[in-house]
């Protein structure tokens, strides 16, 4: 009989689990999307929704209660000023959890959690990441060409071998 077993313990004692969840909730509110394991994502959901409910109340006492749970002042400000007003017409169900794959090592399900309505922000972040990646790739290519040129001026070994090594590092 599976009685009296509610919630997720996550293999931690109470204090450790509370810390973990506070950290996750804070990160989620600041970043709008976080990647974690599926059980953590599921355990996170009720906590975040409680915070958003506080945010919707919006009074001083609510603000103090949120500040007592969230790890940074920045998160509290963001929760009350930008996150909570978004969900004015919605009673719960503020999060989206999407399974993405498996974790190397222990095979746990990985998922990301995001706040609804953050799609535009995610798109911008993705764009930025793509730019950084492109820049890095261009730099690596330049470095590779320079190395090749140097090898040729030295006139020694053929440049094909170190070039291939560089390729795999990218």
């Amino acid at each position, binding site marked *: 009989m599976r009685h009296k077993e509610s919630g997720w313990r996550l293999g931690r004692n109470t204090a450790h689990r509370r810390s973990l969840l506070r950290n996750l909730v804070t990160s989620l509110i600041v970043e709008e999307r976080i990647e974690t394991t599926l059980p953590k994502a599921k355990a996170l959901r009720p906590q975040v929704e409680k915070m958003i409910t506080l945010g919707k109340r919006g009074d001083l006492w609510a603000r103090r209660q949120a500040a007592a749970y969230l790890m940074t002042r920045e998160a509290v400000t963001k929760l009350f000023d930008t996150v909570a007003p978004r969900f004015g017409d919605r009673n719960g169900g503020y999060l989206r959890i*999407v*399974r*993405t794959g498996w974790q190397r090592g222990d095979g746990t399900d990985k998922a990301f959690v995001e706040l609804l309505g953050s799609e535009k922000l995610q798109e911008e972040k*993705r764009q930025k*990441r793509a730019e950084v990646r492109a820049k890095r790739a261009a730099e690596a290519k330049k470095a590779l060409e320079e190395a090749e040129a140097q090898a040729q001026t030295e006139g020694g070994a053929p440049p094909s071998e170190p070039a291939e090594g560089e390729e795999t590092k*990218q």
Partner: protein
Amino acid sequence: MPNPKRRHSKARTGNRRAHDSLKRHSLSECPNCHEKKMPHRACPKCGYYKGREVLDVEEAS
């Protein structure tokens, strides 16, 4: 401690294991790139889930 009284046969072992086989996962088709993917998960090939790109998928360069 109680111990087995008789050795048991290979057939007995085999018969017991007849029900131990693993089943293949059922896969669904990704509506975006038409690859097979695990149901209810973002597609690992194209990063789409429910009509929206949700993951960064590195292209092999």
